[in-house]
């Protein structure tokens, strides 16, 4: 294509703004010798099959390969299989079957494969079927719903044809899908699961909550019942609360845990004025810092448990499963099943102690945080971690698990000569239950020790 003519044509064509590139290219075709390829480019870019009709096929007899290629490229780009039927085919040219194959594979449309036969069809389906995902069928379902709603209000023959086309496409996809993808589709197209996926798509719930809700829904289906919208919302909110990282005391921010509150700052200032009291040594201050972790995590656990108790009560009230006429016995069985499924799993994630018991643990550590017993047990833990970390090759999780186990069996396992005090009863006694003068909430304590040790060793 001569450069000058091309340049002039482009400048001229850009005066007409805004133009489509295909039309701009078509304008230049009359000025250049090889107009067939120019018209082909213009038609393909515009996705306009009538533009292919201008291709004369000069130099070919009995067939028109540039025109056939034009139709084939437009069909492959747009996914419109009907364009392939315009092809003439013939000697040295492309065939409609090649067009169906290209279009089907490029657009992952098994309807194109169904227009073929024999080995070509099998090959086409083999390439297309792994890409036929459940989401594609769900999209088509949504389009079908929209069309049906529209047709109910405004009957229109074009829309009816579109609807038929979509239903055929859906049927072809379901036939050609792999087994796994088909099962996935059955899973996601369930009305109960649709609610879950919608909430997940808008970011209302995370992946873990989504999987738990879908799992619950599947089990309810097998038990012969489904959740109502209100039940679903209640259970969703419960799972969401439980899975929220903010409600996991192990994920609390270390710097926030160690910040003094205003009353503590005041207390610290007053303490420094009491000259008759000796200040903590560096070693004691380090142990107190670890105990601060325990204290703050206990406080947060109380708050979480309070809120969880409220939500749990609300959810139990909202679960009023109707077994759809199966009978009172079945109703109770299903209700128990749901409660076990929902609360059974959720409770294992959070501390199940009541507020009163945790409160007692908190009072203990606040009153005696600087007492020898508490400092002693933290010191023993640190000694144990130093020893076990060497054996575990620096793996804090592994070392922590070993220390926790050994100290539960023998609280003085790691003790050296310089014991602070007899702290064994803190571990030997049961959890705080209103009867122990010195009690420890073991679950929160061990979590706090691991967190604080990790923090101090990386400081």
């Amino acid at each position, binding site marked *: 294509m001569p450069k000058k003519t091309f340049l002039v044509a482009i400048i001229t064509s850009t*005066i007409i*703004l805004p*133009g*489509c590139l*295909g039309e701009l290219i078509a304008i230049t075709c009359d000025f250049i010798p090889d107009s067939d390829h120019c018209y082909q*480019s213009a038609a393909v870019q515009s*996705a306009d099959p009538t533009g292919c009709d201008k291709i004369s096929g000069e130099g070919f007899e009995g067939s028109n390969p540039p025109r056939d290629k034009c139709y084939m490229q*437009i069909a492959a780009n747009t996914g419109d299989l009907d364009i392939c039927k315009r092809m003439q085919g013939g000697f040295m040219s492309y065939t409609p079957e090649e067009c169906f194959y290209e279009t089907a594979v490029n657009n992952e449309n098994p309807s194109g494969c169904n227009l073929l036969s024999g080995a070509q069809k099998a090959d086409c389906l083999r390439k297309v079927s792994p890409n036929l995902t459940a989401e594609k069928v769900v999209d088509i379902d949504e389009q079908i719903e929209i069309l049906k709603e529209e047709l109910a209000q405004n009957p229109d023959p074009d829309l009816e044809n579109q609807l038929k086309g979509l239903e055929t496409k859906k049927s072809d996809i379901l036939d050609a899908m792999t087994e796994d993808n088909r099962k996935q589709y059955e899973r996601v197209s369930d009305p109960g699961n649709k609610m879950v996926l919608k909430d997940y798509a808008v970011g209302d719930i995370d992946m873990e909550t989504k999987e738990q809700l879908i799992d619950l829904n599947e089990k309810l289906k097998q038990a012969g019942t489904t959740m109502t919208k209100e039940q679903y919302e209640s259970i969703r909110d419960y799972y969401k609360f439980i899975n929220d990282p903010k409600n996991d005391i192990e994920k609390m921010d270390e710097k926030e845990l160690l910040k003094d509150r205003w009353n503590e700052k005041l207390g610290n200032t007053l303490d420094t004025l009491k000259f008759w009291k000796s200040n903590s040594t560096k070693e004691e201050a380090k142990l107190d810092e670890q105990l601060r972790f325990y204290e703050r995590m206990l406080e947060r656990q109380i708050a979480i448990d309070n809120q969880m108790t409220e939500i749990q009560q609300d959810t139990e009230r909202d679960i009023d499963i109707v077994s759809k006429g199966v009978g009172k016995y079945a109703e109770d069985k299903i209700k128990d099943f749901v409660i076990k499924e929902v609360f059974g799993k959720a409770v294992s994630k959070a501390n199940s102690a009541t507020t009163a018991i945790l409160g007692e643990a908190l009072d203990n550590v606040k009153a005696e945080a600087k007492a020898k017993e508490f400092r002693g047990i933290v010191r023993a833990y640190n000694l144990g971690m130093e020893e076990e970390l060497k054996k575990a090759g620096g793996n804090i999780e592994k070392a922590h698990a070993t220390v926790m186990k050994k100290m539960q069996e023998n609280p003085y396992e790691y003790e050296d000569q310089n014991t602070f005090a007899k702290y064994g009863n803190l571990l030997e006694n049961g959890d705080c239950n209103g009867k122990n003068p010195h009690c420890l909430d073991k679950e929160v304590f061990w979590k706090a020790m691991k967190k604080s040790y990790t923090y101090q060793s990386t400081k």
Partner: protein
Amino acid sequence: MKNSSPKSCFLNSAIFPLIFSAILGITYTISYIILKDGILAEASSITSPVISESFQKLAIYGGIIPLLDAMIFMYILYGLKILFRLKKFHILNPIIVMIVAGAWSAFGYHLAYREPQFTNIAKAIIIFTSKPILISSATIFGLGLIWLIIHIIYSFKKHA
């Protein structure tokens, strides 16, 4: 005593289409240079080596086309303004700039985000020129808008 006529801003003379077109061309070139790495990475999708190499050599000069086109159109509109005896309405000058820049911005946006890339020539035009056209024309549009706002504020102050 001589009465000196109030000085008019030089931009309100017939020079403004030249100035704004020049800025358009320069901004196009600067944008192309800044975006070049990304453009060349995207250009690997062009399967015709002839088209790809031609555009790699010539695309940096592509600013000439919008420059000339914008200048021609701005002068056409300026000429119409004089023809209809609206010469003293200087507020129309930034509007002329915004009309032409707006049209090129629309074209640049269409190329960058709407036009499909079905052929190699289309891919090349879109990949190499669409974003520089969009950025440079949007810049001129913005400058025209600032000029218009300054003009309006100045007019209010003058008549206040």
